[in-house]
Each structure stands twice: as structure tokens, then as C-alpha cells.
């Protein structure tokens, strides 16, 4: 036993050592069209396999050692979410830089910028970040950007552990479920953003609720073996007694419950003022808990609804004045929502389409395993299943600019992962019996289960590594590109315009209200030809134009422009009166200024 203990610890340490070697030897400038994976050597994948093997071995021990499982889970998180942070010289994703700019504005002016854009109508997250950087003695949030994804994913671990422990799955499924959630989280909403913070709020709310309340067990209640009994239990989900929270019980004292309700209220207020979508996701999840006897206080979802709707109608009125269709226009438009979220994303080069296809495959595989897990497990309630389904109501109401399905997949992810883990380690007890008979593996059970867990986890982890960083060829940036942007900020006059082809550069982190941006492709219309882009950009009369490697890669990978399109554009700009600024930042970016009539 001690030998086996030493083996998993050694595997974990070896995995970390291999990760360090892999990130040390990765050369960012060699990144190709497949993104991050193109600079990762075999060392990374061997290390990942060792970490997964250690987790699989630990999961099938007779007695679980949770401290080691925690450590190995942290190793897995570092692999999946720390690699890009370590290799890419500056923070990826333009949006993270833009959010840093919003934080700086709030820090300097003490208030959000009104009538600027939708995100500033929910300024709570930016205000919190401004408070944090003030405490840190900084003047901007730039130091927070690069490692934020790893930090926030590690913060998710605590509420995930609480959710897993209280969800009704057994301990092995709990740990495997958490690992599967991380291994399938390709969704990349953990950059410096309000939604990353709000996902933490979401997890903490659900963790508190599931930990506090359990279904009230009535003596003599029959096991729901027959279909008639199961249907009867579903009818009771909408009975008044259930909706009043009387079917849920808690072991907490009245004072503890009031304290937790206070914390829940604060979290709901924080979410309502900092994100458009998450409060409604919290509401749906709380309703799922209420109807499945996992919430004893119906006031909580009512509180969330009032706060979310109240902030929308009062605090965010700048957002919807004259644009109500933005909020309500996609209600019931499932076909067009699906098109915006899925079909229209499967475009671009073969490598890009492969990335998108594999992402869809990962999500489908996770939900398929979750379905199997739901059928194999016994339970006291179907809360997990309802928590998986609840976010899909959001998708039916609001396509969220084509990102609705992404957000739904993220919000369902932790619960789907716990169900998927139950496909391998199902709990078999509880008043709700399993729908499938138990499968016995005899004396090889531990080996078979370890192999199943290991293969599933490794497959997901490897594919997530590939697809999560799959767009990094145009969504990550070099130090040279940042230097070029810094040069423009240092030299541009207020109220002048910076022109770009597509929004793929580290820009927006300062002078939010004074420097304007012109994006030639407008609202993301990839169908504009390079010739038309050239005409639009020249007609914009932007004071500065920035062309960089990320935009070049975007043009070739996503928009289908031929090689050398950016050089042609540069030549056309020079012919129309722009001059190239002598580069002090290598060849990764070109800055042009408009010499005529600046």
C-alpha cells in the first residue's frame, strides 16, 4: 500500500516537472494555425498522462486519500489552464485588455462611463477590480490579466468540492466529476471578465444551497420502483408544499440559516450588478433546487428575480433605451439562435473547422456520458439532472449575441461532469433507483474502473488542451504587439481614431473614453473581402492603423484571406497617405500613421 502511495505522489511530482520542462522549451513565436498545441512538445502530453494516471489510481483505492486527490486535481488544473498563461508572453484575448481599460476608467473617475456600451451598464465587477487594484497600490489591472485564468479556475475548486460532496454522488464520482469538469472546460470564459467572476458567484450560491438543504425523508416512503410512483414524484415537484420549501430540511440552526441567507443575498446583489446573464442562471438553478427539494427557502429565487429585473430596468436603462429587441428579440427563436451559436461558427480554414468540430464533440460526449450516469445512478433527488437542464431555458430566451450555447455549456458543465462520473462510479442507493442494472466486473473491477476513468479523463484533457488553445494563433499576442499598441497610446491625441482590420490585438486597456477604435470588419462579418476591407479602412481616416500577426492569422484562418493579404493592405495604406512607423518591436506588428491631414 505504501508503495502504491509513493507511486501516485511520484507520478504527480513527475507530471509537474515535465510541465515545467514543456513550458520552458515552448517557443511562442513558432505557434501555427492549430494554436497552443503547435508549440507543445511530447513532454507536456506525457506529463498530462502521468497526472491522469495518478488520479485514476487514487480513485480506485479501497480508502480514498482526499488530500492527494486534491493535489493531483490542482496539478491537472495547472496543466489545462496554466500552460497558456506560462507560454504566452502577455494576456490573450482582446476582451481581457478592454476590461482592464474599464477598470482603469472606474479607478480614475470613481464611476462607470455612461452610454458607452452594454458592459458598463453592469459595472459591479469593474468596480470590484478597481477596489482590488487600489488595495494593491497599482494604478491599473494589467498585472492581473496574464495569470487570471489559472487563478480563477483554482478558485472554482472550493465550491466545486462542496457541490460534489452535497450532490448525492459518491466520493469517487465527486472527484472524477470535478476532474472531468476541468478536462472538458474548453469554453475559455475564464479570462479577466465579469462572467468569470460571476461563474464563481454561481458556483458558491449552488454550493451553499446544496450543502444546506436535503430532501425531507419521510418514514415509510416507498422506493420509486414503478413508473407510476416516479410520475407521482414528478407531479409533487410543482405541489404548493414543495414550492414553499416544506419538502427540504436542514441540519443548520436558525442563526446559521439566516447567516447563509445573508451571504446568498450579497452574492445575488453582486451578480445582479455585474453581469447580464448569470443572475438568471442563478435563478433557474435555484428553482431547480426548489422543485427537487434541495432548497427550503423559496424567498431566495424570488429575491434573485427581483434584483436581476430591478437592475435591468433601473441601473441598466442606458443599455436598453431604444434597444429592447436586443433583450427580447430572440425569445423562442431557437433555429436562428442555434445557427448563430453553432452553424455559423463552423467556418474558416480546415484547421479552424476542426477545432470547432472537436469542441462540439467534447460537449456532446460529456452530455452523452452524463445521460448514462443519470441512468446508472440511484439518488435521493434528481437535482443534478435539473441543474444540467436549467441553463438551457436561457438559450431559448436569449441567444446572447451568438454565445448563448457556450454559456449554457459552461453553466451546465459542473453538474453534467458529476453525472458523467456517475457513469463510471455510480451510487446505487436512494429512494430513486437506477434505471439500468448494475454491471459487475468481478475481481478485475478496480483495474477496469481505473482504466475507464483514466481513458475518459485523458481523452477529454488532451482534446481540451488542443481546442481550448486552438484559436490562440489569433487570440494570443506577443510582447512586440503590445509594444506597438503602447506606442500608439503614447502618441495619439484625444478623440482620434485607431483603425484595425479585426479586433485581435492587446488594445483597449487605457483612455477608454478618449481614444476611438474603428474595426473594418464591423460586427464580425467575416464575409468582407480583403479589397473591401482595404477600402473601408482607408475611408475611415483613422489617425493610426495597427496591423499585427494576430490579425494576419485571423485573416488566413477564419476569414479565408490568401497569404500576404496584410502586406497588400499595408502597401495600399502607404499609397493612400499613411507612413510606417519605424518598428522598435520586431516584426510582429506594423503601425501606420496618417501623414496627410492628421
Amino acid at each position, binding site marked *: 500500500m505504501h508503495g502504491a502511495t509513493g507511486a501516485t505522489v511520484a507520478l504527480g511530482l513527475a507530471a509537474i516537472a515535465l510541465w515545467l520542462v514543456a513550458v520552458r522549451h515552448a517557443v511562442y513565436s513558432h505557434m501555427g494555425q492549430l494554436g497552443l498545441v503547435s508549440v507543445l512538445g511530447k513532454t507536456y502530453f506525457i506529463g498530462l498522462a502521468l497526472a491522469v494516471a495518478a488520479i485514476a489510481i487514487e480513485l480506485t483505492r479501497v480508502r480514498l486519500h482526499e488530500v492527494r486527490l486534491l493535489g493531483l486535481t490542482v496539478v491537472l488544473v495547472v496543466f489545462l489552464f496554466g500552460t497558456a498563461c506560462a507560454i504566452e508572453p502577455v494576456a490573450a484575448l482582446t476582451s481581457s485588455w478592454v476590461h482592464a481599460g474599464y477598470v482603469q476608467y472606474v479607478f480614475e473617475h470613481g464611476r462607470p462611463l455612461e452610454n458607452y456600451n452594454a458592459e458598463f451598464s453592469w459595472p459591479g465587477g469593474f468596480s470590484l477590480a478597481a477596489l482590488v487594484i487600489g488595495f494593491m497600490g497599482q494604478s491599473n489591472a494589467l498585472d492581473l490579466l496574464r495569470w487570471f485564468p489559472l487563478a480563477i479556475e483554482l478558485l472554482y475548486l472550493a465550491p466545486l468540492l462542496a457541490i460534489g460532496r452535497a450532490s448525492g454522488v459518491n466520493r469517487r464520482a465527486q472527484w472524477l466529476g470535478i476532474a472531468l469538469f476541468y478536462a472538458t472546460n474548453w469554453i475559455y470564459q475564464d479570462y479577466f471578465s465579469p462572467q468569470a467572476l460571476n461563474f464563481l458567484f454561481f458556483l458558491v450560491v449552488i454550493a451553499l444551497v446544496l450543502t444546506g438543504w436535503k430532501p425531507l425523508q419521510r418514514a415509510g416512503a416507498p422506493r420509486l420502483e414503478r413508473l407510476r410512483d416516479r410520475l407521482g414524484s414528478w407531479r409533487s415537484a410543482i405541489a404548493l408544499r414543495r414550492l414553499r420549501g416544506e419538502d427540504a430540511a436542514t441540519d443548520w440552526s*436558525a442563526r446559521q*440559516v*439566516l447567516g447563509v*441567507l445573508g451571504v446568498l*443575498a450579497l452574492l445575488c446583489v453582486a451578480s445582479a450588478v455585474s453581469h447580464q446573464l448569470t443572475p438568471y442562471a442563478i435563478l433557474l438553478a435555484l428553482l431547480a433546487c426548489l422543485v427537487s427539494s434541495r432548497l427550503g*427557502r423559496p*424567498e*431566495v429565487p*424570488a*429575491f434573485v428575480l*427581483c*434584483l436581476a*429585473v*430591478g437592475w*435591468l*430596468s*433601473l441601473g441598466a*436603462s442606458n443599455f*436598453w*433605451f*431604444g434597444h*429592447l429587441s436586443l433583450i427580447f428579440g430572440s425569445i423562442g427563436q431557437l433555429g436562428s439562435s442555434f445557427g448563430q451559436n453553432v452553424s455559423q461558427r463552423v467556418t474558416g480554414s480546415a484547421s479552424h473547422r476542426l477545432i470547432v468540430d472537436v469542441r462540439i464533440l467534447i460537449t456532446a460526449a460529456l452530455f452523452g456520458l452524463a445521460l448514462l450516469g443519470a441512468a446508472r445512478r440511484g439518488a435521493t433527488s434528481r437535482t443534478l439532472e435539473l441543474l444540467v437542464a436549467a441553463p438551457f431555458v436561457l438559450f431559448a430566451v436569449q441567444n446572447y449575441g451568438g454565445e448563448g450555447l457556450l454559456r449554457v455549456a459552461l453553466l451546465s458543465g459542473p453538474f453534467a461532469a458529476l453525472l458523467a462520473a456517475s457513469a463510471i462510479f455510480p451510487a446505487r442507493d436512494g429512494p430513486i433507483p437506477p434505471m439500468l442494472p448494475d454491471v459487475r466486473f468481478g475481481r478485475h473491477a478496480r483495474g477496469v474502473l481505473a482504466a475507464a476513468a483514466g481513458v475518459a479523463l485523458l481523452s477529454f484533457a488532451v482534446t481540451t488542451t488542443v481546442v481550448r488553445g486552438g484559436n490562440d494563433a489569433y487570440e494570443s499576442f506577443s510582447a512586440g504587439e503590445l509594444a506597438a499598441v503602447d506606442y500608439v497610446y503614447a502618441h495619439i491625441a484625444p478623440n482620434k481614431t485607431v483603425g484595425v482590420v479585426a479586433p485581435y490585438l492587446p488594445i483597449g486597456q487605457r483612455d477608454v473614453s478618449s481614444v476611438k477604435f474603428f474595426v473594418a470588419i464591423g460586427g464580425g462579418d467575416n464575409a468582407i473581402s480583403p479589397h473591401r476591407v482595404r477600402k473601408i479602412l482607408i475611408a475611415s481616416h483613422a489617425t493610426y492603423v495597427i496591423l499585427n500577426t494576430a490579425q494576419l492569422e485571423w485573416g488566413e484562418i477564419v476569414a479565408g484571406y490568401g497569404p500576404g493579404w496584410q502586406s497588400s493592405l499595408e502597401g495600399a495604406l502607404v499609397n493612400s497617405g499613411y507612413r510606417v512607423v519605424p518598428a522598435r518591436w520586431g516584426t510582429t506588428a506594423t503601425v501606420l500613421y496618417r501623414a496627410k491631414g492628421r
Partner: protein
Amino acid sequence: MSWEVASSFAALASAPAVLVTLVAELLLLGLRAWVVTTRLDLTRQVHLLLDGAVIALGFMFLLLVFLRFVTVG
């Protein structure tokens, strides 16, 4: 005698009206949660009155928000 409640729907759905209704509803929800959690010894009629107030004020709040969207949006 004038039975006008407000000069217009827009006035009825003005921000202060929505805010006051919101705050009142949140306070009532908090009160209900506290009463039930601490098992305060109230008569059944008082409980029903509290529940009724929460529901009625909730409907009023949602109606005012709807009016605000329709008139001001």
C-alpha cells in the same frame, strides 16, 4: 373627484416607483424568510397575509417593470 392614479403610464412606471416597489418587495421577502426560519409564533392568518403581500407586491413590481419597458424603452 379625479380617480387618476398617475398622469400617464410613463409616470407610473418611473424609476422611483419601480425602485420603491423593488425595495419593498425585497424587505418583505427578507421578513418572510426571517419569520419562517426563526419559527416565529404567528397565527395562520398573519402568515397568509405576509404571503399575500409578497405575491401582490411582486406582481406589482413586475407590472411596473413591464410598463417601464413599454413606455420608456
